[in-house]
């Protein structure tokens, strides 16, 4: 087994979706470096990184929910409208009824939950395809937004704006950096190390094969370098700015949902339903409940994203959230999810979302007009998924694999280990 293969396998496991992520991470790094050069270092400057996070965190929050919807075999077109609807409701009750901002956030989430229950009911219990239910929802709640807001803009109070436009505050001694951001970076570094260490311990406990030490070192070292660099950039920006609150909300959600989808019975059920609904049902999975909860969860996250956006732009308007559903769906598919459901990960979707975000941001920094940005994003989405489809057809399983192929000298038959050969055997149609 070549080193690249071994690294790939140990970093991401062997499955198609994970291999795709491996490719996407490299793509992300490549895009970041490309724009770093093209924009003369502007891309990775503190100011740009901070605005990148606060500008895209709500799309990434949507991508989390969308990933689960897509894994379960559905789609949600209504998230942008729901975000706008919740945004206007929250802005309205704060302005007209002077509801305090924290209570307004809770009410906003509750409204999202009610809307989600409504859509989930149609999808799960009546059996209307999610595409139709959410297409209807897209119109319904867009209209609702304009009805409540009289197609006008409603400003939101200062306290509320924190969730969209706030930063970690400056406290403690003057170090030249934002102290809380430094602390946050430190916590993440520790978490990365602990996680790897515990992962190894678990593999040992299973009496399963443990990845070689050099892989663990790489697996820890690369994220540490990235985190340290990012921490210093975020903490070293203009005074008064630091790591955005919305980024922290996103981070917490990624950790929670990542855990739920990977490690809980409920998460397993989502993948089972998307992979083979009938098999899942005959294994005792409550199909309707899973579909209901997945749709409902999406709307709650859409509500949250809507509120963050309203907070960031200081007002809620009739054009909020237009096209968000498409950005979220694109992020999920670029991140390796399968159109037919059952495959995909939260982290993959985040990486996919970041690829699109960096692309968008980098092109804007270069002064490319939004018309051309749209065209380029469309092409990238198509190519990412097409390359994946092509690779599957060729029996290769990742973007990086096909990129590396011309450089590989070892012949496929000679270098493969027996285990690998066994896999290939199953993959190739020798069923007869």
């Amino acid at each position: 087994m070549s080193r690249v293969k071994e690294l790939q396998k140990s970093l991401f496991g062997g499955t198609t979706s994970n291999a795709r992520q491996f490719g996407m991470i490299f793509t992300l790094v490549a895009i970041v470096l490309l724009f770093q050069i093209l924009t003369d270092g502007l891309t990775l400057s503190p100011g740009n990184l901070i605005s990148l996070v606060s500008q895209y965190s709500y799309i990434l929050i949507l991508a989390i929910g969308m990933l689960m919807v897509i894994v379960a075999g559905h789609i949600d077109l209504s998230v942008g409208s729901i975000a706008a609807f919740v945004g206007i409701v929250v802005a309205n009750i704060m302005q007209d009824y002077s509801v305090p901002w924290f209570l307004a956030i809770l009410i906003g989430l509750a409204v999202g939950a009610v809307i989600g229950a409504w859509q989930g009911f149609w999808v799960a219990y009546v059996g209307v395809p999610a595409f139709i239910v959410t297409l209807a929802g897209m119109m319904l709640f867009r209209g609702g937004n304009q009805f409540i807001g009289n197609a006008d803009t409603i400003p939101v109070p200062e306290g509320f704006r924190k969730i969209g436009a706030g930063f970690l505050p400056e406290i403690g001694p003057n170090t030249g950096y934002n102290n809380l951001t430094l602390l946050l970076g430190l916590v993440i570094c520790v978490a990365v190390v602990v996680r790897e260490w515990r992962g190894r311990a678990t593999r040992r406990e299973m009496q399963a094969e443990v990845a070689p030490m050099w892989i663990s070192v790489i697996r820890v070292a690369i994220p540490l370098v990235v985190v340290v660099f990012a921490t210093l950039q975020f903490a070293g920006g203009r005074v008064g700015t630091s790591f955005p609150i919305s980024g922290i909300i996103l981070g917490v959600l990624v950790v929670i949902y990542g855990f739920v989808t990977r490690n809980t019975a409920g998460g397993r059920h989502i993948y089972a339903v998307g992979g083979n609904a009938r098999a899942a049902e005959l294994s005792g999975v409550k199909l309707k409940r899973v579909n209901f909860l997945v749709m409902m969860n999406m709307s709650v996250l859409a509500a949250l994203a809507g509120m963050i956006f309203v907070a960031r732009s200081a007002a809620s308007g009739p054009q909020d959230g237009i096209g968000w559903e498409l950005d979220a769906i694109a992020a999920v598919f670029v991140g390796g999810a399968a159109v037919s459901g059952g495959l995909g990960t939260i982290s993959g979707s985040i990486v996919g979302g970041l690829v699109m975000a960096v692309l968008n941001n980098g092109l804007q920094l270069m002064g490319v007009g939004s018309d051309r940005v749209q065209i380029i994003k469309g092409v990238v989405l198509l190519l990412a998924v097409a390359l994946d489809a092509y690779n599957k057809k060729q029996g290769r399983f990742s973007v990086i694999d096909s990129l590396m192929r011309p450089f590989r000298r070892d012949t496929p038959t000679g270098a493969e280990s027996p285990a690998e050969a066994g896999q290939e055997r199953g993959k190739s149609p020798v069923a007869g």
Partner: protein
Amino acid sequence: MSGAPVLLEMRSITKEFPGVKALSDVNLVVRAGEIHAIAGENGAGKSTLMKVLSGVYPYGTYSGEILYQGTESRFSDIRASEHAGIVIIHQELALVPGMSITENIFLGNEPGRGGVIDWKIANRRATELMAQVGLEEDPDTLIKDIGVGKQQLVEIAKAFAKDVKLLILDEPTAALNEADSQHLLDLLRGFKLQGITSIIISHKLNEIAQVADSITILRDGRTIETLDIKADGVDEDRIVRGMVGRELHSRFPDHTPNIGEVFFEVRDWTVRHPISAERLVAKHSGFTVRRGEIVGFAGLMGAGRTELAMSLFGRSYGTYVSGQIFKDGEEIVLKSVSDAIEHGLAYVSEDRKAIGLNLLDDIKTSMVAAKLSKISKHGVVDQVQEYQAAESYRKSLRVKAPTVDEGVTKLSGGNQQKVVLAKWMFTDPDLLILDEPTRGIDVGAKYEIYGIIQRLADQGKGVIVISSELPELIGLCDRIYTVFEGTITGEILRKDADPELLMKQMTSVKKAQRA
């Protein structure tokens, strides 16, 4: 048949996939007008060889040569081989359910001009072709409204529409009941008289022995031997020996049953068809299962065995009308699959790929999927326990895979079936219902599955086996119920069971004498 001219010769065909040689130096000689069988265990390379022949793997992707009608053929795709008169009918039928018989017969081969279909010709030709294959249906009937047996005939008619010279059938009878299988085999004999050459790939060795003129046996991607069925006096045992390279002393492991008390009973079980409400798929059915007993359910396809089993398993099929289930003397009510699992029932479905497994999963995830609660705390799955549980099943059931992290799609049919069995053994059931547990599985793996079933019975569990293969039921079960059109028509003890008696009761409504 040794006198007939050679129609097809495949010479030292070698086909490699990354990391594996699927075919190595395979030779095949088929004479004009014969029925030539190809046998081999799963993974022996039968389907790959046929894909090379039919151009699915085009010229250049394999080495060796194909001589067809005396000249070397280099097929670039399926169309090219079909043009030459070679038509392959795959195990999974390639028909469009929502289209009519006529439309399917001419799909991709529509008579007419400039893309406009001439329906007059199409209908007339369709009627002729259907008569040729013995299919009595209205040509306008939709495919989804006819049974699998008739669908198979439509596939063959479709092949005839392409002016077939060499017909290749991949497991043609795998999904057919005995009567339909027989009809198909008779049809093949008829084609022979018309000068059509057939290649048949089948796991059903009795059919090969019955219908084929010669047989080529493949093992591990190599040609083992080609035999003339009559001249060499080939019987099933001879074929098995060639396939596995050793003699299987018996097709069933030795087993002394240790049967206890009746612990599971169904009374007056009546279920309505999910769509047509006037149809009953189970009519006042009642049966019992004892601890340690293997109970068989015999019946023709569509007799309602699967429907009965699934309706018992948490009402997964049809609409419940009446009936009671008793377990250990107490009535239990199973309204959902999770109720059924909770009460110690397990149902291994007949179609493991469509409804038994999530093919995207790896082995360990599949094995624990039906009872995650057993290895999770507060909904969080303990991955160490998951791995260890799966690993122990992998070893005890001898699943051929390096680790349990492997994806289930990469396994052969027999190993996938073991994974499904493990999945249900993991739920600690008292009663296992196994629906066609050895369908599409090769001889060696079948033997292992039988052993697993017997071990489960020896642990004091009740096992119900639904099977369309009578020898399997007779060889494995302690007691057999026969089912006909939703009614249980008989109950036969192992010592009294013979295929004729079973067949008689499987095809009649008259209540047989209770054994």
